[in-house]
């Protein structure tokens, strides 16, 4: 019989965090799968109420130390929309550079410190580094470049200080921009080597149908703009998103789960690459050819390779944006608060990040709603665990089951916290 154990679960207000997993095995099958995100709630949506619009980017950055810029960019885009502001091409260009930096930084961290040890058979990156320091160092170099891009526009990679409603407090100097462009150009071969290495990893087979969801806009591979589309025909204005997804609380998690039109779906690098692979330059994808892996892919393990491809893409993209003409004109447009609602969605490193702010005429936030990527992926993650573990066979030692379960979860890069070895797997065996 099943054990309905109530976990004492501190959780976070819908962002990444510590997690636990509970799986019930019943007569050779899986009963319940409970992926618990038990980051203590931090109640950001409440903290935002009554704060002035100017403070919002620095508040929401603190939701996530790994993707603070995505929170900042999404919040300023939403507030600008609410105020009817149009900051213009230069500011849009530098925001894309900032997003590139964060993708590179976040993806490099996830691949090297969190996910790759799963495919290489090491317990952690430190142990991997003792055996193969060169490969890990390449990851560190790419991570540092992503951080340097974020620092160019915000002084530091965690909670950068450069972005504001209307644009940036200042643009980087020509000298700073040029120096970083040179570093990036010199590092492109590293990114290409990373993609080839990632393509050659030994990925377990997996073929599960799922719906990929991401943005689609005029700016090429999606980052900071566009409609919300899927490979099953969805095509939504971000303003309509909240009416099509259903968020619900499950007893074992303080992160909400979400369904799009009643179904689980995937957001993040693999979803983006599945839908927009044609926007990645041919020569970047050519590094994958010899592996036989093709996108779109229904193997979630390939999300690691998708991250590597996005790192190379984001380096190339940021280089070409940095090498554009030096910015002319002011770094921000002045904000004039008006009463109203502003909604925006961007592609954070882990997928669609959606913000809505109800703003008063004095510029204070009346109400805020934030839908982060991880809660969107959580239903699919649990389905994947159930099916993939059953398919691989349950009559195995718990250690093997635990490792598989951890790898499956890490494929989704659940907004991080302890995405490496964070799982506290409890296996209840009811067959007896």
């Amino acid at each position, binding site marked *: 019989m099943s054990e309905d154990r109530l976990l*004492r*679960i*501190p*959780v976070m*207000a819908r*962002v*990444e965090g*510590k997690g636990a997993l509970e799986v019930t095995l019943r007569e050779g099958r899986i009963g319940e799968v409970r992926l618990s995100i038990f*980051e*203590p*709630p*931090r*109640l*950001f*949506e*409440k*903290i935002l109420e009554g704060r*002035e619009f100017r*403070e919002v980017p*620095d*508040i929401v950055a*603190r*939701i*996530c*130390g*790994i993707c*603070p810029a995505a929170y900042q960019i999404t919040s300023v885009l939403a507030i600008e929309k609410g105020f009817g502001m149009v900051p213009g091409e230069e500011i849009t260009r530098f925001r894309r550079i900032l997003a590139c930096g964060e993708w590179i930084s976040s993806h490099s*961290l996830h691949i090297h*410190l969190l996910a790759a*040890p799963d495919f290489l058979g090491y*317990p*952690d990156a*430190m142990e991997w*580094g*003792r055996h193969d*320091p060169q490969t*890990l160092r390449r990851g*560190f*170099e790419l*991570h*540092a470049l992503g951080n340097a891009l974020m620092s160019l526009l*915000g*002084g*530091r*990679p*965690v*909670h950068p*200080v*450069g972005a504001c409603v209307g644009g940036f*407090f*200042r643009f980087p100097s020509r000298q700073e921009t040029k120096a970083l462009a040179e570093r990036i150009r010199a590092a492109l071969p590293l990114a290409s080597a990373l993609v080839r290495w990632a393509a050659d990893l030994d990925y377990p087979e997996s073929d599960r149908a799922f719906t990929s969801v991401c943005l689609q806009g005029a700016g090429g591979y999606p980052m900071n703009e566009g409609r919300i589309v899927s490979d099953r025909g969805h095509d939504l204005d971000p303003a309509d998103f909240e009416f099509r997804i259903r968020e619900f*609380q499950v*007893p074992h998690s*303080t992160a909400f789960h979400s369904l799009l039109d009643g179904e689980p779906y995937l957001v993040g690098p693999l979803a983006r690459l599945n839908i927009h692979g044609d926007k990645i330059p041919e020569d970047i994808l050519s590094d994958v050819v010899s592996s036989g892996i093709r996108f779109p892919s229904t193997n979630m393990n390939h999300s690691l390779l998708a991250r590597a491809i996005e790192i190379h893409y984001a380096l190339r993209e940021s280089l070409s944006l940095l090498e554009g003409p030096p910015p002319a004109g002011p770094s921000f447009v002045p904000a004039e608060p008006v009463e109203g609602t502003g909604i925006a969605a961007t592609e954070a490193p882990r997928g669609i990040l959606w913000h809505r702010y109800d703003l008063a005429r004095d510029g204070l936030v009346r109400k805020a709603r934030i839908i982060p990527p991880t809660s969107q992926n959580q239903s699919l993650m649990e389905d994947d665990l159930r099916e993939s573990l059953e398919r691989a066979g349950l009559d195995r030692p718990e250690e093997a089951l635990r490792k598989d379960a951890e790898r499956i979860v890490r494929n989704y890069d659940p907004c*991080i*916290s*302890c995405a*490496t*070895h*964070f799982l506290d797997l409890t296996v209840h065996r009811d067959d007896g």
Partner: protein
Amino acid sequence: MTMSGSARPEEGSKTPHPKPRIAVLKLASCDGCQLAFLGLGDKLLELSGQVEIVHFAEAGPLGPLTGLDITFIEGSLSTREDRDMVLSVRKESRFLVTIGACATSGGIQALRNLASGPLLSSLYPSPEVIDFLDQSTPVASLVPVDLELWGCPVTGDQILGSLRSLLFGALPPVQTDKVCLECKRRGIACVTVTKQIPCLGPVTLTGCGALCPSFDRGCYGCFGPAENPETSSLARSFSGLGLTPSEITRRYLFINSNAPAFLKEGRRWQGGDSHE
């Protein structure tokens, strides 16, 4: 380094002396301060050779929290489970170090301490399943802390600097300079003097390198209050720059709202005037 009564010999270790045992723990936080470790690059690998990283969930190791030489804690206390864990880990740690605003002052989420009404039930349909304390508080409100590293986030230099001292059994010198001094050192023109931008630099600890002024904006206090901060006179100068009392309150009640000096000044201006 000798750690009588705390360090344990490593099983199978070939080193003659046991390596110092280190843990990095996380409470309620954004994980950004742990990145000060994870972003160390090569130095992280060096560190993992010099010390035994016993427990650091985000990096992998999940060893038992016993016999620790240095324990770093990120995040604020906001659940019963975390409170129990901190009580226990204090007993097991020779040095306990808080990293970042959350662990040191309660963090941005301490703003909820100032709110009225049932916050949780307004966000979660079933709040009763959530383990949650009334207030978000710093680690030092529960147990003695040997070293507090301020910052939102802390930097890799703060981490490495403190490790170097602590591995020799000594507490590092405490930084007490204000952001203002850092601007002068770096030759950054004062944003208040030259552009009339309100700036918390005169009352905030340095450590960031005066980042915000270098980006043409005022400091917002993420490294917390400096020693003997003249919060009231700065607040009056904010008033002179045209800030309303509620704007002055929000300046102080932000990243480190629960730090006593900022909390006191922020409250003083709450409700319309400074009560002076």
